[in-house]
């Protein structure tokens, strides 16, 4: 008999989603969907707010990557008011944004994804979680908890708040970085770099090598990719640069964030609140058909390491070279998101050190003069989950007239739907399924870290 399996809530992800697997009379997969279940309306309720207040409102879009919304929002407001942040102000924003990437990656890999690999995808749901990991590998867990806490404290001591930050402001930053704090941060970030190298090694030996077959197959689809690269040398950038859109065949188009409307569109289906961005500029429309996808690209870690020409920091570059020699460019296997995430973890630690070693990072000229007024600004940063775009228009008082947001996670809603369908169809045959199989379908989603 035909039936629908409702995997709800999708767990160990950072939002509200449901997977529905539709089985036909013979128990095979007819269709499968992953729907986003929540809608809050940020684009609308920031209308009328003084623009300089908005970066501390939009942070609440996501409590896991609030720094991304905070910095993208600030860039957009700078654009509206026609102000260029002071060099130190801009670098302090980048420093905090990149440090926030460090925590995010540790959190995702070890707290949310690791249970599937450390305890095994088929282990019982009651132990297949971070608490189970703590019990199974207490030493590792202790170290992870300490490192995450260290990263969080580094941000909080300097910027007041790590979750829902307030320290990036229109025109720059709210306070300079004192020399003593710089030195302490430098010491802490070297500790984090050591840990990131250990994490990469650990994952190579205990996850990627062990699960090679699963990685090659689970949720595998073929798509294009979107990320941000340095305007001059094409190296990976998290804070600023030009956008790079890669087709499945590896050919690339570069564009400035300001022009995103010429390249990206958002498709909407009636079965989920999330909009699905797609490559409008490919002029092939939108389709999630597994055999003939149209307009579909992916964002987030795997996309960024695919589109960049190099990593821009030495240890991360070494890791990228090893990755490319094993999986090619572009690498398509969905579970490689985890691998790419750890390469980026190494990059984020190295970049933090670079920024802290920059001569003028402790300068006191951290905020440019700001005059509220009418204008438009597009702020783009790479959030852990993908390219984040904030586009605001202000009125003569400098209050928001209209806003458009493309949030990192949403780029991957289409691809996640494809991966879910691919995984479900490959794993569920003739009405046979169990909780381990359905967890593997969820793993195809978890790789994207939505």
């Amino acid at each position, binding site marked *: 008999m035909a039936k629908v399996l409702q995997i709800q809530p999708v767990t160990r992800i950072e939002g509200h989603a449901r997977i529905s697997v539709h089985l036909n009379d013979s128990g095979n997969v007819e269709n499968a969907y992953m729907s986003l279940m929540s*809608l809050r309306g940020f684009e609308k*309720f920031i209308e009328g707010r003084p623009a300089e*207040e908005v970066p501390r409102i939009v942070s609440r879009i996501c409590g896991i990557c609030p720094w991304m919304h905070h910095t993208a929002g600030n860039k957009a407001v700078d654009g509206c008011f026609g102000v260029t942040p002071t060099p130190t102000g801009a670098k302090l924003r980048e420093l905090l944004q990149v440090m926030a990437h460090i925590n995010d990656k540790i959190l995702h890999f070890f707290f949310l994804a690791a249970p599937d690999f450390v305890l095994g995808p088929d282990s019982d749901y*009651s132990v297949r979680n*971070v608490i189970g990991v703590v019990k199974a590998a207490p030493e590792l867990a202790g170290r992870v*908890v300490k490192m995450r806490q260290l990263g969080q404290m580094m941000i909080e001591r300097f910027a007041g708040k*790590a979750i829902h930050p307030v320290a990036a402001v229109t025109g720059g930053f*709210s306070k300079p970085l004192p020399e003593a704090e710089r030195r302490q941060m430098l010491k802490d970030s070297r500790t984090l770099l050591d840990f990131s190298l250990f994490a990469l090694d650990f994952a190579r030996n205990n996850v990627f090598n062990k699960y090679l077959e699963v990685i090659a197959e689970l949720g595998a689809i073929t798509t294009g990719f979107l990320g941000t690269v340095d305007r001059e040398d094409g190296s990976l950038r998290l804070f600023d640069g030009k956008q790079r859109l890669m087709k499945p065949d590896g050919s690339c188009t570069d564009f400035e964030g300001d022009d995103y409307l010429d390249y990206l569109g958002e498709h909407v289906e009636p079965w989920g609140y999330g909009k699905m961005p797609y490559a409008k500029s490919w002029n092939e429309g939108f389709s999630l058909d597994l055999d003939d996808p149209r307009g579909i690209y992916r964002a987030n870690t795997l996309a960024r390491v695919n589109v960049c020409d190099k990593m821009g920091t030495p240890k991360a570059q070494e890791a990228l070279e090893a990755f490319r020699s094993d999986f090619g460019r572009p690498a398509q296997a969905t579970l490689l998101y985890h691998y790419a995430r750890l390469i980026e973890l190494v990059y984020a630690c190295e970049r933090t050190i670079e920024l802290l070693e920059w001569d003028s990072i402790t300068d006191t000229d951290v905020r440019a003069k700001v*005059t509220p007024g009418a204008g438009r600004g597009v702020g783009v940063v790479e959030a852990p989950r993908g390219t984040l775009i904030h586009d605001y228009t202000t009125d003569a008082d400098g209050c928001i007239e209209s806003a458009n947001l493309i949030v990192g996670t949403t780029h991957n809603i289409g691809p996640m739907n494809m991966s879910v369908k691919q995984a479900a169809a490959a794993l569920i045959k003739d009405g046979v399924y169990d909780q381990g199989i359905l967890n593997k379908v969820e793993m195809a989603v978890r790789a994207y870290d939505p």
Partner: protein
Amino acid sequence: MGVTTAMEWLSSCSGCEIAILNIGEELVPLLTEHLEVVHAPVIMDHKYFGQCGDEGGHLQIPEAVVGIVTGGVSNEEHVEVLQEMRRKCKVLIALGSCATHGGIPALMNGQDGARSFAEVYRTSSTDPGVSLPDQGVPALLDRTYALDEKITVDLMLPGCPPNPAHIAEAITALLENREPELPTKSVCDTCPTRREGKGGMHKVRRFIENVQFDPAKPVSDMRCLLEQGFMCMGPVTAAGCAKYGAPSCIEARVPCRGCFGPVLPKGNQMLDMMNALASNGIDCNSVVDRRSLLRFSGAHGKLRPLRQAVTGRTDNG
């Protein structure tokens, strides 16, 4: 075996969950010894409709002694989940300002929600001709509610995000069967800035320039931001965010925007702030967009859609 605990999130951002993880060293013994988590979408895999999603019927959450709910209530599924949490949990904690006062998503309560949500699907990058998704997604309520507008809440821990130390204290107190020790004062009461008395100030300024301070000196050396002429909501906001000796935003040399909700249990952060300004001789008209002073506490009917005047929008609070 620890005390059974269930967690749920409604119209939330996951920041409250991260605040729980930020408890730090105490977190590991708490999770592995003192508590036994039976349901928590963010970290564990218990499902509503059976582990294979084929049990149908009403969504199920296991029984637990402690229930922690974050986020406000803004769609039908949130109501269902919240009611199930109330049925199954002995003690229910509302965690975070979204759960206690509506939080940022309740800013939508200041608009005609039905119209605004439809407009979300008509932005510049959205394909033309689409409408609000309505197949198998939970229908939106007329507005965003705090938890206690829908069910009885046993303990409120506001903050956006809440302070991890208070989360740990609340849970520990429950385990030890005593009243938790939580802050009762205002943000100003916990603020070390220098106050010199009224500074002949008549207007409040927007935060478009940095405050005056000596970066080499501690916060206690900086003059109160309200006295410097910036809107700072410390006087009307519940204390609790100070971790290193000063309120978190003040530490960053940025004025308070009230994220711990009103200091008085039924207080109205906008009206109370206006009164505070007026009694100090400050012109309330100098506040641009005063309704956004309710940005963290717009539930409980405090923030309502503006009446459309014939001549256009009125902003009379």
